[in-house]
């Protein structure tokens, strides 16, 4: 699998050794509601692997949304790949987003596209030609166990199949940062272990990984650092 869209991202390369993600005193609220995230300081070094844990409603998804630029913070500063997202021109934000692969908790697959076209979506958006990506996409679908279902439409897939499809879509462009929101919530333990190996393999190849998960067994098995969210605050380590 080759890294796609490198040409268009070169203009937004991070300064050497800068954190991939850097939060400084970040707070976030929805509308006029109380803050769901408070005074978040976070730094993800290039090539790091972290789990993000916390009770349901603790703000894990909100934190990920801030990183993949679906939400703006209410206060504080966020730097992504070394760029202050507040001051980065709007026209350049898509180039930052292309460097981030996201596995959404609700999958966010496009129901009118086949499994194959869903996985190929990031490559199409980055301007890659079908002749270039179709082999990689088919290979990846095969790897996540959907090789025989690449022609299926998402509504006909099971929850586990949709999850694997969402993961394949998130990693197909070899993102520099991979964010996953409960990526093993709908798969059996064997498939969960297999997907974890995929994340670890991507991490070994240089991708920074942040996985939000409830799955304590998965977190323990991975043996990677844990960031824990509690009452909107971020703490290092697994809570007792």
């Amino acid at each position, binding site marked *: 699998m080759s890294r796609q869209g490198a040409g268009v991202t070169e203009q937004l390369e991070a300064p050497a050794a800068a954190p991939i993600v850097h939060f400084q005193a970040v707070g976030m609220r929805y509308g006029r509601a109380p803050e769901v995230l408070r005074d978040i300081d976070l730094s993800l070094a290039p090539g790091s692997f972290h789990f993000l844990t916390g009770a349901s409603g603790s703000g894990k998804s909100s934190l990920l949304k801030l990183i993949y*630029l679906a939400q703006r913070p209410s206060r504080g500063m966020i730097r992504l790949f070394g760029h202050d997202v507040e001051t980065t021109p709007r026209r350049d934000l898509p*180039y930052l*987003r*292309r460097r981030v692969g996201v596995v959404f908790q609700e999958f*966010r697959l496009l129901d009118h596209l086949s499994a194959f076209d869903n996985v*190929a979506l990031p490559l199409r958006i980055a301007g890659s030609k*079908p002749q270039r990506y*179709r082999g990689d996409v*088919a290979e990846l679908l095969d790897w996540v166990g959907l090789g025989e279902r690449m022609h299926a439409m998402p509504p006909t897939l099971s929850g586990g199949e949709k999850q694997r499809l969402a993961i394949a879509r998130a990693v197909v462009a070899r993102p520099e940062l991979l964010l996953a929101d409960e990526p093993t919530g709908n798969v059996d333990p064997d498939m969960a272990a297999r997907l974890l190996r995929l994340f670890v393999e991507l991490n070994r190849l240089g991708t920074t990984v942040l996985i939000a998960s409830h799955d304590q067994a998965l977190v323990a098995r991975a043996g990677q650092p844990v960031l824990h969210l509690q009452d909107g605050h971020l703490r290092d380590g697994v809570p007792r």
Partner: protein
Amino acid sequence: MTEAPLPQDWAHWRPAPLLPSGDGRDRALVFVVATLCFLACLTVFAALAGDRAAQGWRADLAASATVQVRPTGGESPAEASARAAEALAGVKGVTEARVLDRAEAERLLEPWLGKGNIPDDLPLPRLVTVDLDPAAPATPAALRAALAQARVDAELDDHSRWMKEVERAGLTVRAAALAAGALTAAAAAAVIAFATREGLAARRDVVEDLHLTGAQDRFVAGLFQRRFAALAARAGAWGAAFAMALAAAARFFGGAEGFTPVLPLEWTDLLAALPCPLLAALVAAFAARRTALSILRAEP
């Protein structure tokens, strides 16, 4: 839910469109845009025919003049008129100068006085009609000079007042057609803008996914732009086709008079509807892109 073609058949495989295919709302939109295009084409036909009618009337008026003769010095009206016609016939640029006899003069008054209501002893103005050479018509000054030289007391009507009225009417027709065309285009743009807004709202999930996957605003706007341009081109073709069919029927059954005698239609006028699909597509593309960009730029 149908299944997509097998990607293994690489030779025939093409990526699926990123926007879901149209639904019932598209058909309603095609109908509205086609109707607007139909009306716009009829407006163009009417403008062309009206312009042609105005030009014809102007040419007719410019090719003739009328002289009213007032007898003087014991000369009979018939003698004075004959002398005036003789003098005018000799002017360069006059093809014919002819005295209207009483019967012709009565016929001119019939619209006001009615047929047979003119007493025999009612004195009627003696008129001389002058036909001018369309290529090099005699000027009013030359005609007046000829009458003065022949010592005929007469009043020349060179129809310039009527020609100005006809020109004004022609300009009004053209301006009305232009305004109607602009209004139709604006209405089509408004409809497309509304449909784009609806389309963005209905496909919120798709737009958000594309957005979060790194699509630029212009990429997403381009999807809506292409969709609505294609839709408007199709609707424009339908509207133009119906308008051409109606105009062709009017021309076929109504002869050169087309819709009415005041709107003489030519077969070549029908060609004016041909750019309609392209213009509709351009208006739709502009409206859809502008609307989509304005909405997308309000996103985080």
